[in-house]
């Protein structure tokens, strides 16, 4: 009985999960807002979360360092910035990294 109950719960979660949902996680926000320029433009370098340690990302956002190169205040709301910062900090060079053979 228990296994059927658990299986039902899992199926429900799975169906809920693949339903259309809305929201902007940090990774997606980073891909949309940051990589749009940092991959597609020849004028900018590719940006990766491991480019900086977490404290450096925090400092980068706190001091609005991006504005020295390009003012992005109109491109990102404070909420967007917060989500991107959380993603960058979570995946910064000093964060817990995945361990998979053959994967950078």
């Amino acid at each position: 009985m228990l296994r059927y109950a658990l299986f039902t719960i899992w199926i429900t979660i799975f169906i809920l999960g693949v339903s259309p949902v809305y929201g902007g996680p940090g990774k997606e926000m980073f891909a949309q807002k940051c990589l749009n320029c940092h991959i597609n433009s020849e004028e900018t370098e590719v940006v990766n979360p491991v480019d900086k340690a977490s404290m450096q990302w925090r400092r980068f956002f706190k001091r609005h360092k991006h504005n020295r190169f390009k003012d992005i205040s109109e491109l990102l709301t404070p909420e967007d910035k917060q989500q991107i910062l959380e993603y960058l900090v979570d995946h910064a060079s000093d964060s817990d990294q995945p361990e998979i053979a053959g994967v950078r």
Partner: protein
Amino acid sequence: MDQIIISFAKSFRLFSLFLVLGMMSSVIFGNEAELDKLKDRIDELEELLEKIEKQNASDRIHLTSDFRLMHHNYQYFGENPQTSERESDHVVVNQLRFRLNMRTSIVNKLRFTGRITVFKNWGENEFVDPPDLTGTGVPNDTSLRLERAYLDYFINDTFSFSAGRLPGSGGPPMELMENTPRKSTYPVGAYSIELDGLVLSWNLPDYWKMRPALRFIYGEVGATGGDIFRDEDIHTMRVAIYQAEAELLFRNVEGLLIYDHLQIDDVGLSLENIRRTQIIANATGLETQVVQIPESMAVVQRDVIHLQLHLTPFSLDTYFSYISNIIKSNGKFLQINIKGTDIPILCVGLNREDCLPAGSSTRHSHAYNIGTRYQLPIDVKLPPKIGLEYHQASKWYFATVYHGDLNQTANINFAFHNVAGTAIHLYWIQPLEKNLFLRFGYQRVDTDYEKIIFSTIEHKQHLIDTYVLLNARF
């Protein structure tokens, strides 16, 4: 490196003083172009300093640690298969685990990763028992274990080669309850012991919201019976794993889809079991005679499908694994008789329920694991996570552990992902800081069958573990 930073910082401070003076004079004399130039140079210097700071923080041998304190409350009850009497036990164990992780980029294309681990029960200097039910990789003594030590050579962005003691234990989905990123190449349902070998990876380009990869893993593992063995007793088994995986990158849904086919051609038995039997027999005044010792007793084939999803808007993870196991016994068996007679005192054949010498058999078994982890929608800095895991497997199932304790839990019958029966795990992760969390858990393991060497007998046992652990990474 620290000295370089200090000297650099001193130079930077001196240089900054000149720059400030320069800026002041520029302001005084109203030379704005000069001022802009100086600002640019300060920016450049700041960038340079950050690079050095980052290098110091992350490069060379990057050491991190993982320290865990555990309090386990085990309750056992079952029925003695010989006497049919009910048995019960209650054990409280305080335990600690310390891991030292190493990582370094030797050159741009070559990376080393290592991990050494030690387990220790409080007040005990030699043995670690009962086991941690949550996974393999738990030794049965306090010796320092080399859990992984391997080199990755990235030939280019697509192909890579890895060799050494591979990152194979604690694979998906175990990172969910460990509250870490993925920590293994293949899922726990495929194989979860320390494997020495090599991996060839073909990381394919992104294709329709997927990042596919193909891997071939070849490794060797030694099976021993534990504490009384000689080097020549170790039976080495060769393991081949063919893996196709895809990282799923859908909007709001990240995931992992893995298919594994595993094959072991030479499943055998450590001679240590013979030594032990002989020692016991000799102690009772019996002389023994080895009748036969087969090199190999079976071929094992396993197919695993693992799907894992992270639903970002709900902060919810969920997974499903199905494992199909086929053991093709070649009919050979190990036998020790009382000397000068035909009376066996040890008779071991793979998947045999009796001691009859004739015939071979093929055993098929299957298992599935389902689970979920949910981050509670509470408006706090570090919200808690709750998780639920369920495992069920049929009679002849064995998964992540082999007989013997070289790489394994101290008791294979109760290892969560190895149970031939059912197992359930409910846990609550309470983060205290970014790298510090508490986990409260309840596990119940109900075994239908007990694995004794290579045989499987019906034996209903129940083990409940109520635990709390504190984990710190630094």
